[in-house]
């Protein structure tokens, strides 16, 4: 509101009154870019998936839901191919599900275990601080560096052929587990730190052992936070492409993996492979694949965020 005031006591009054709202509007606009970009992103991919190339009779029905469902179903059931009409992501989706399951099997127990140890058991001191700093730094290492690590350690075993895994599913699982471990450890620690100290003291005062206290009281009340971190970590693993390229997930694999020692592919790797194709008719295939991937990840992340927000309300 601009009032006429004595300018001797209010220097630059008009300017000050006007600048505020302008700045506020600029800030609001900046915040909205995020939302706008998300909408633009989904919209353009949806459009690309529906439009398809003009010479392609299969997609020329017109944009509607039925067509989209058909497209996604076809992509999900067909295997990799050189013909855009026949191409699909069956091998990649199955590979990604294998990765998801096995990474969860390795990453969750180790990650939560490490978090519980650091927060509840480890004596405070220099060693704990060093480990803590290390984990924080590991969380910031680019994913492709994990890929190089996986290549050197798991795929090649530093050149010792006898114990080298080769470009097998297990190498991908181990690499991705390492990648998400810091995320799970850090969020587990944060969740444990949010548990009030009085809860621990009450349990110990009633004669519970440290393990009983952690198992019966601390872990249950930290569970939502831990769950959030775990889901975020797993969704990160599903969306990663670069490290999997390094440890041998190839878009050209046509056989479904049957066990951890088979060759494998993953959904994002296959998307990358199609995106590299110069043939514009593959655009529909790429866009459809991304729709599947994004739908999966947004669902996982939204679940994690909802769980965390509900958790916050209790404290």
């Amino acid at each position, binding site marked *: 509101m601009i009032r006429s005031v004595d300018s001797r006591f209010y220097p630059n009054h008009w300017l000050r009154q006007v600048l*505020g709202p302008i700045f506020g509007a600029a800030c609001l606009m*900046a915040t909205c870019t995020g939302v706008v*970009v998300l909408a633009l992103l989904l919209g353009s*991919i949806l459009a690309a998936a529906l439009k398809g190339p003009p010479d392609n009779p299969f997609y020329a029905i017109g944009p509607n839901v039925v067509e989209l469902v058909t497209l996604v179903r076809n992509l999900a059931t067909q295997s990799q191919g050189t013909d855009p009409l026949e191409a699909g992501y069956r091998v990649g989706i199955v590979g990604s599900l294998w990765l998801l399951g096995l990474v969860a099997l390795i990453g969750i127990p180790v990650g939560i275990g490490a978090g519980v140890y650091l927060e509840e058991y480890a004596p405070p001191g220099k060693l704990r601080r060093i480990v803590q700093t290390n984990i924080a730094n590991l969380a910031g290492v*680019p994913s492709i560096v994990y890929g190089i690590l996986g290549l050197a350690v798991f795929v090649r075993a530093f050149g010792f052929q006898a114990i080298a895994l080769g470009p097998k599913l297990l190498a991908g699982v181990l690499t991705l587990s390492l990648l998400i471990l810091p995320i799970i450890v850090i969020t587990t620690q944060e969740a444990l730190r949010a548990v009030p100290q009085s809860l621990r003291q009450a349990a110990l005062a009633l004669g519970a052992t440290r393990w009983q206290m952690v198992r019966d009281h601390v872990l249950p009340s930290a569970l939502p936070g831990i769950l959030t971190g775990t889901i975020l970590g797993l969704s990160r693993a599903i969306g990663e492409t670069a490290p999997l390229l390094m440890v041998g997930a190839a878009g050209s694999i046509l056989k479904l993996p049957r066990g951890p020692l088979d060759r494998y592919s993953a959904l994002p790797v296959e998307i990358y492979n199609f995106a590299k194709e110069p043939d514009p008719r593959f655009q529909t295939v790429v866009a459809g694949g991304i729709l599947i991937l994004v739908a999966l*990840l947004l669902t*996982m992340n939204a679940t994690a965020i909802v769980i965390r927000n509900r958790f916050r309300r209790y404290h």
Partner: protein
Amino acid sequence: MPEFLFGTELKPDAATPKFGIVPLIWGTFMVAAGSSMVALPIGLLSAIYLSEYAPRTLRSVLKPTLELLAGVPTIVYGYIALLLVTPVLKRLLERLVEVETFNALSACIVVGVMIIPLVSSLSEDVLSSVPRALREAAFGLGATKFEVSTRVVLPAALSGVFASFILAISRAVGETMAVVLAAGMRPQITLNPLTSIETMTTYIVQVISGDAPYGTPKYLSLFAVGLTLFAVTLTLNIISGVVLRHFREVYQ
């Protein structure tokens, strides 16, 4: 070793292969600088909005949305660069200059958008941990909301905001798939953002996608470049961590 660190030519497939990392570092620097120009102002402004201006309900909607944006896999951003950003750039600039299909600018834009959530969410945490008393004191002296935000809260939180900037730059340096798809794979030292460049991460993908036999210099150069990349990002992360710890010690 000096040839690797200071060589300005990268020709792994030539008859006498040359492995100078300077073009890759230059390309990485270009993407990091360009994406910072997009992400840092927008990220900071939205952090200020979320922490100082936004009503509680709006904030509880906006923040998760920004977090969702952070969860979109990087390959999607690469595809968006090819599908949306580059064609738009071409349409806008075709009268003036030639825009290559793979160019540094579109990589900068998508990587910039990608790291906005990182900047805004970290900076917002830092801004909201500035003590309430500081704000109230300033309001009590008759400052407007704009003045409180920019002259009291922001300077108080500056070191923390700086830390979030460094972390975002480190993320841009290590970003792979978006840059691979958007910026192409031509190692060169140029100032023109409309041509193709190659970053350290892209080179690693290029070597592993081609069939470099195990043990050859080209294959081994992958580890050298990877180590350099690791050293750069680790340094940035450590600086950011130290600055952030300092900030926390001041206010908590």
